[in-house]
């Protein structure tokens, strides 16, 4: 170790011996041979499945253990019924987009895979996914009217706007982002339960929250709060119900600099800074409020269908209500969704489409997934029986369906070429939440930057 060069040589290549010169030509010959062999091996792999006459589809998706188990069971039935082998590639939610894009760049598009509504535009324009309209509309086993409109429409694209035109995917699920309250806490405090059908006004919401923000054990520190919302997931709701929006109808202009939008964001920030009904300003950014809600310290909190299985073990009762509504008086919130699409290079388009239909709309497959508690049913008739089931929480499951049918909207970036313009809104929002900048000032600053990103995205998509 005393010779510095010893270390240097570990960083660069090892010194090369004299034999090298003699070997050089043979080395090249050998490497060429090896490359040729590797090439043969690789091409052999892809041809292998076809040679044996067995059909194989690849299905790439993301999800946790629950989903993997549910899908494996469902797919086994599909394999038997259609005499086909389905190769499952599952990734974590974080890895999915990286792995899928690597597969696409490597010209190895899976036969069937998940896409988000935000991907539709780019994937269609670049010929990555197949138009499945003909199959879907012609299928005897599939009744489009029985699937949520929102779920199907999210994957329609007419060449310029997402939401109308040909169908490119069927929904894997729809995820209405609903609002819940801690029923046990309300009862203990003697506060009348909120109406399950009429949204609270913003003032009522703050009022109730104030009554529930208390120091229960008398140690001088608050240990129960009205709410604690994450700006990234809840701002949409308050902006929309206040009459504001993120984009104009054509999706060519960012409209966050309106007074309605500023009012909604300011009100949101004031929940912590002025009203003091959330744990603390910075907490809205972390998962803490989620943990606090689950340990019964928070009165109002968002509830998604994916939470229902976890919330079944809570020590308190909870139920769903519409999101509190701003100026318009109409509650609004977003509905997430993932779709299942067919890759354009598939050898078996018909079979792939059948698999999509099966995963999205087969009653038995749906039941398996709903029973796992990870999603609400895609089929309206299955959903009706699910809502009527009074043995499981929450009692007001109808609220989930109302959101999907009625008050729910797509997340703002779902229908644009990419989400850069939308992410920009949240990148520098912290000073507003901390109360050191007014919402109006911030939004005025942010709008031009967001607009530039949107223009860029629209230019890439060839619209606007």
């Amino acid at each position, binding site marked *: 170790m005393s010779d510095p060069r010893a270390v240097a040589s570990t960083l660069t290549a090892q010194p090369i011996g004299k034999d090298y010169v003699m070997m050089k030509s043979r080395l090249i010959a050998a490497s060429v041979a090896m*490359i040729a062999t590797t090439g043969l091996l690789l091409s052999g792999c892809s041809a292998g499945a076809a040679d044996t006459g067995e059909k194989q589809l690849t299905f790439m998706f993301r999800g946790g253990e629950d989903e993997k188990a549910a899908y494996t069971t469902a797919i086994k039935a599909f394999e038997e019924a259609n005499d086909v082998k389905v190769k499952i590639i599952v990734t974590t939610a974080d890895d999915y987009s990286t792995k899928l894009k690597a597969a696409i*760049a490597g010209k190895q598009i899976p036969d069937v895979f998940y896409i988000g509504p935000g991907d539709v535009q780019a994937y269609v324009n*670049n010929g990555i996914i197949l138009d499945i309209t003909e199959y879907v509309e012609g299928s005897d086993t599939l009744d489009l009217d029985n699937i949520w409109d929102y779920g199907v429409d999210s994957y329609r694209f007419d060449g310029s706007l997402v939401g109308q035109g040909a169908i490119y995917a069927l929904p894997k699920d729809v995820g209405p982002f609903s609002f819940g309250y801690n029923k046990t806490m309300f009862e203990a405090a003697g506060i009348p339960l909120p109406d399950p059908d009429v949204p609270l006004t913003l003032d009522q919401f703050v009022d109730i929250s104030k009554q529930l923000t208390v120091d229960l054990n008398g140690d001088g520190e608050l240990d129960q709060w009205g709410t604690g919302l994450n700006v990234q997931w809840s701002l949409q709701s308050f902006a929309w119900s206040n009459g504001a929006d993120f984009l104009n109808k054509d999706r060519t202009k960012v409209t966050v600099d309106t007074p309605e939008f500023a009012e909604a964001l300011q009100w949101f920030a004031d929940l912590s800074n002025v009203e003091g009904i959330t744990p*603390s300003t910075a907490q809205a950014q972390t998962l803490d409020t989620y943990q606090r809600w689950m340990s019964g310290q928070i009165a109002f909190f968002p509830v998604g269908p994916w939470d229902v299985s976890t919330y079944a073990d809570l020590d308190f009762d909870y139920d769903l209500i519409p999101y509190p509504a701003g100026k318009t008086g109409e509650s609004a919130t977003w509905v997430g969704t993932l779709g299942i699409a067919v890759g354009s290079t598939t050898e078996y388009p018909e079979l792939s489409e059948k698999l999509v239909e099966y995963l999205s709309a087969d009653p038995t497959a749906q039941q398996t997934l709903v029973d796992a508690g990870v999603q609400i049913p895609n089929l309206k008739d299955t959903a009706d029986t699910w809502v009527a089931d009074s043995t499981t929480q929450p009692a007001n499951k109808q609220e989930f369906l109302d959101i999907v049918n009625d008050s729910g909207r797509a997340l703002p970036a779902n229908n644009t070429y990419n989400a850069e313009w939308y992410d920009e809104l949240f990148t520098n929002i912290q000073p507003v939440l901390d109360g050191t900048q007014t919402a109006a000032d911030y939004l005025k600053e942010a709008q031009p930057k967001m607009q530039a990103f949107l223009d860029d995205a629209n230019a890439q998509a060839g619209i606007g």
Partner: protein
Amino acid sequence: MSTEVLRTKPRRSRLHRREHQVALLFIAIPLIGFLLFTLYPLLYSVYASFTSWNGLAAPKFNGLDNYIKMWNDPYFLKAMWNTLFMMIGIPIGLVLSMALALGLNRKMRGTTFFRTVYYVPVISSIAAIAILWQWAYNGDFGLVNQVLDIFGIQGPNWLADKDTVKPALIIMATWKGLGYSMLLYLAALQSVPRYLYEAASLDGAGTWQQFRNITMPMVRPVTFFLVVTSIIGGSQIFIEINIMTPLGGPEFSSASIVWYIWRQAFNNLHMGYASAMSIVLGLIIFVITVIQFRLNRRNQFSID
């Protein structure tokens, strides 16, 4: 192979030939791996950096557009600055690991135990560590703030505050890398010849002088190695950022350059732009490393 054999025409036995063939096969595997999985992608990304490419369709040549865009992109510059800032952890880590190595190099009980303790973070998965520290940094329940609370200090919400998120990441990275540097220093310390210290103490050199004039120069190669590899590793910091602050931190304050590249490539469909940024990052690392090697060569010495 002796010189005599080289001068005459080399005779090769069949065994000799066979062994060479087998050896070539062994060499071929990493070589092909390098050509296929390193050189080809590298060249391709150089090409991609001059194109507008969304990663889905074929790249379209657009000259220097990406490089010009980069120069005017405030987030690129901020991400570069953040990455540079977080390298403050490198000298801190070196000083701490040197101190630890000196301590653990003494003859006392329990050194093996402590060496193991400090090495555990090194072999742990970075993802697990990031999640662990994310909890530790939690504003209310986090271990870090609970400890500060004992001393009556109200800790910040580390990861949600733009002024504390970088220090928080630096502390974590330093903690994680400590064991590795310490182990290398320990090995270096143990290979310093004892007679140098004996001679020095006979000449009346004190502990500090011995450390300054014997220990430091003798472990220089290790310091050099650690500085070079830490800078290369530090410029590529990504996993902990992506796990602990998935949106790049409050006001983009913890976004590293690799995180930004990844986001542009895979979330925003700007594969060409991302390639251009990677090329720039690669060049920067390359230049820094060359400079370091130059400086090191100038300061070389040997003892005979």
